[in-house]
């Protein structure tokens, strides 16, 4: 049984997303003024990564079911 690459991709980006979202919620808003034009990029891009990670995990699970 070959490892489905979508599984580690999905896991990695979900983990990255969760870490960035949490950090985005607790971090000092001042860093976004100095760097990212006032956009809380950690929060926003963390959410995007969670969505992508979840899609990958869903595809991996679906692939597993289709094989079984």
């Amino acid at each position, binding site marked *: 049984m070959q490892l489905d690459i979508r599984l580690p*991709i999905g896991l990695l980006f979900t983990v990255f997303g969760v870490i*960035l979202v949490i950090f985005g919620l607790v*971090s000092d808003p001042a860093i976004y003024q100095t760097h*990212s*034009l006032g956009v809380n990029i*950690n929060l926003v*891009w963390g959410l995007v990564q969670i969505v992508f990670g979840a899609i990958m995990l869903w595809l991996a699970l679906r692939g597993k079911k289709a094989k079984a």
Partner: protein
Amino acid sequence: MLQHSIQLHSIDYVLLVTYFVFVLGIGFVLRRQVSGSKDFFESGRSLPAWICALGFIGANLGAQEVMGMAASGAKYGIMTSHFYWVGAIPAMVFVAIFMMPFYYGSKARSVPEYLKLRFDEKTRGFNALTFACMTIMSSGISMYALAKLLNAILGWNFHGCIVVSGVIVLAYIFMGGLTSAIYNEVLQFFLIVFGFLPLVLLGLKDVGGWDGLVQKLVKPATDAGFAPGTFTQSWAHIGSASSNPMGVEWFGLAMGLGFVLSFGYWCTDFLVVQRAMAAKDMGAARRTPLLAAVPKMFFPALVILPGLIAMALHSAGGNFQLPPKNGGLDYDMVVPTMLSHYFPTGMLGLGLTALMASFMSGMAGNVTAFNTVFTYDLYQGYIKKDGSDAHYLKVGRWTTVVGILASMAAAYAAASFNNIMDILQLVFAFVNAPLFATFLLGMFWKRTTGHGAFFGLISGTVAAAIHHGLSLPHGAEVGIKGGWLGAIHVYPSEMAQNFWTAIFAWTTCFFATIIISVATRQKKSDEDLTGLVYSLTPKIKEQGVPWWQRPALLGSIVLALVLVLNLLFW
């Protein structure tokens, strides 16, 4: 000064460490799936097309590429995208439609092995040896560039970076072989997309969108004495070499880059071809470069646009400034400067992780190509012909160790003797430029002989060297840049000289191969050449293949898309 300009916080390290855990974890899980040399070197020829396709671009998208393209973007503007639209996509379509049937369909396990089947032992040996040296050099340069960058921007220990990156790449290839390398290239592909897309979006927002960017780039263009739109129009200023900062004209660009160099790389370099050969069947192998071409043509938006934005911000004179270097600007620092400007801690960790991932997958791509060519073409070819499969698997694993150690040595060589690196890179450029003529004749003209191929290649290489020795880029000194035979022609830029060196090498190889082939006897019978030459190979039947899996149709769509992109940014 930009010394240690980036401060990382614990959150950035958490992201970095998480990535390394995943990389090693993938290798660890794949370890159990490697049961023979075919698994280790060819991924068991079992991967779906989309994975091979992302590996195909991932292996090519090393960090020098990412940083180099951004640097060129800042230096030359949008004309840099010719390296994608002219210098990659057409060749990718060609290799998929016309060449993959012979690579994948023959029994060859590597590109040099194809040369042995099609021509003879000496042609294979020449290609295998030069290729093996080249992969080690590239992997070493990757390592050196990574360590130098991390040392400069983060203050990390140079030697530590070399050892740690070497050990990590070694660990995952040693365990999972080619599959491990490809999986990590896919991971790296997504990391680059997720790490650089927000950078581009924030940058565009900052400069006022594409229109704002075009306006802000008028000043650097006119300051340098060019037409106002030079930085944002890809074809309009290419009529003569003096009207664009790249110093090239359209013929040199189309023939040198678009034909000789690009086809030479994408169609004959085992590093990329190996990814397609890992596909599960012929259809998937042919779709690999075609599927890869789609993201590839949009990559200028991710890797070149940051350079354009950096230049726009720099010339606007705000709080964003590129660091100076030797009286000009240090264009290599475009990416690190942009990352630290737009990314707060958190995203900064992700951006750096993406950069490190692409350094390491650039190394891994070279090392996997090296261990395959060394084991199959040099070790099995010349040292031990009749070993068991388990023996070659073992040799492959230990070759990986040797490859990494040799890369480290190359990294230190690059660090201490800059000239040696230049000379070696030049020699390999000479060897590579004529190669596509050999493959083109070999695959489409059955009369091409082994002697013709071998001596044609040698004369192409010699022609490249002579051309380089007789010409010089504008303003350069005689020596490593050329002119060592007496400069009789001066090119407006180094790039123009490179393109024309390639054109001379290719043309010489092409005609020399034809003349020598006609003069020598063809030792291979038609049966020997079946599956290796176009006219002697049965056409692939496409009945029952759905339209979206047909290579010719996919190829046409890809070419149409790239044409539209060229017209949009004309």
